[in-house]
């Protein structure tokens, strides 16, 4: 596959690049998440001074959207990290000890997967309290069974291959076989999985914040901004438009990037993404 034809990867990179440059600017030079309240200029429509308008407290919506991006990426990265590390580790435990540890883990993971993701996150937040750190943990725990399932299936498949047998024959310990031989084989798949779940994690943070239980004010969050916007829907539609655009562009960018990455890393999967004609 030539570089020219992997349009999804490049389109995703461009969309993500636009968001990341803006977010980076806000974090480095724009004051980050801290945006000044100026009640005398509240609910101003988009203008030269406030490109995205101002909100009900007179804060610049553009600065809040970019600051919210920093929170979204932070929550997404940490949540995927929790899911990736936790899921992979538990999958390795289940592959190493096939009898009762694997069975108990399997039952718990099936139970976790039976919950709609947002419901599980809400239950965890009910126990831990509201806030963006709690949201990160809640989303991350929800991702553990996702990574667990894929890693375990792949590890079991790889584990039967000849080079693993050879390593065992040479006297490598089980832990070494899993860490040095099995894990590197499935690493590309984990990278793809991490990318596709990242957009879901960003969406989940926005959803939880929209419900009022995720990121709490005064920290900016795209979901929370949209919640505030519903209270001024008739007067300040720009409050409802721009955070949503930022969220959709980010998710679309990550999804396209993930699709492109899958094509680049694993051409055999390409047929399943439906980009190549099947007939």
């Amino acid at each position, binding site marked *: 596959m030539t570089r020219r034809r992997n349009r999804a990867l490049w389109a995703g990179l461009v969309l993500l690049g636009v968001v990341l440059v803006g977010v980076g600017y806000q974090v480095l030079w724009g004051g980050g998440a801290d945006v000044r309240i100026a009640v005398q200029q509240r609910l101003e429509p988009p203008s030269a001074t406030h490109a995205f308008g101002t909100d009900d407290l007179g804060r610049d919506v553009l600065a809040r959207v970019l600051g919210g991006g920093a929170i979204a990426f932070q929550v997404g990265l940490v949540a995927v990290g929790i899911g990736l590390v936790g899921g992979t580790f538990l999958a390795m435990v289940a592959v190493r000890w096939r009898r009762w540890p694997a069975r108990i883990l399997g039952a718990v993971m099936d139970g976790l997967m039976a919950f*709609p993701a947002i419901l599980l996150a809400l239950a965890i937040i009910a*126990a831990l309290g509201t806030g963006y750190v709690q949201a990160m943990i809640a989303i991350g725990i929800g991702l553990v069974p996702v990574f667990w399932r894929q890693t375990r299936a792949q590890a079991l498949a790889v584990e039967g291959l000849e080079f693993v047998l050879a390593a065992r024959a040479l006297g490598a310990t089980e832990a070494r076989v899993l860490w040095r031989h099995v894990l590197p084989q499935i690493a590309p798949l984990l990278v793809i999985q991490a990318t596709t779940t990242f957009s879901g994690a960003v969406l989940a943070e926005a959803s939880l914040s929209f419900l009022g239980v995720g990121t709490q004010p005064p920290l900016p969050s795209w979901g929370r901004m949209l919640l505030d916007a519903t209270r001024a829907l008739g007067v300040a539609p720009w409050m*409802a438009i721009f955070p949503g655009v930022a969220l959709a562009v980010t998710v679309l960018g990550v999804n396209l990037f993930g699709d492109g990455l899958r094509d680049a890393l694993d051409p055999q999967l390409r047929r399943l993404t439906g980009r190549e004609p099947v007939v």
Partner: protein
Amino acid sequence: MRAARLLTLILTVLMTATIAFVLLRVVPGDPAALMLGLDAPPAELAVLRHQLGEDQPIWAQYAAWLGGLATGHLGTSFQYHAPVATLIAERLPVTLSLAAAAMVVTVVVALPLGLLAAVRAWSPLDLGVLAATQLGLAVPNFWLGILLLLAFSVSLRWFPLQGYAPLHAGVAAWAGHLVLPAVTLGAARAAQLMRFVRGAALEELGREYVRTARGKGLGGRAVLLGHVLRNALIPVVTVAGLQIGFLLGGAIIVEQVFGLPGIGRLVLQGIFARDLPVVQGAVVVLAAFVCVLNAVVDLLYGVLDPRVSVE
């Protein structure tokens, strides 16, 4: 095979109940203290601890919780002073109406468009459908809901802005309050299902039996509806079944956009009021619903594809 499926179902529901118990009774440490706040009078704390059964050993609490579930007793709401089961029963019809209406939207949009896109693969129409599915998956449902409210309720005033009308208040009012929420909730699912229908139909279109059917002189529509659709439906039903969990989860969010008094609102009020029995009960009931519906889809799979039930 059906008995095995039933056993799996029971075990999964049991596991969700256990997880809910661990999350909301064990993780918070002292649920009574969490519910009443830090500066609660010790006497009140003691009363609530007794009500929650916290003065019992943990295994006794667990057994009591499972026993309650089996008999339909989910505890008493701390905030409403009413049985949790009653509170859920009042709100479940709203959530289920919304999820069912969204499922209808999903299937009605995804099946014809997905098939059409497969038949005209790589035509402008197909590319349009593919682009729309990417967009549909990227737009979060609550934002779509807000945009629909802006367009159809604030500007055009076609639909009510907020609230819900029960079925017995008239079908028109009920439907009027459900159209926008159902479209909101169904859009992303439709996008996903459409991609899948297209893929499955493309796969079937390339098979020998399609060539045979065409060779017999069957018209395009007969081949498409009589042969391709029937076979493509098998994987599609599985995916549609997997959507049930997403639909019920998404309903929690969409209810908030449109002010629908469903289970989602009950859970959120429970979280804000630290009314743990309500959260716990609602979480288990919804999760159990998803499990049961998934099992039904599994059985349906056997009906659609006789090869499955032979095994």
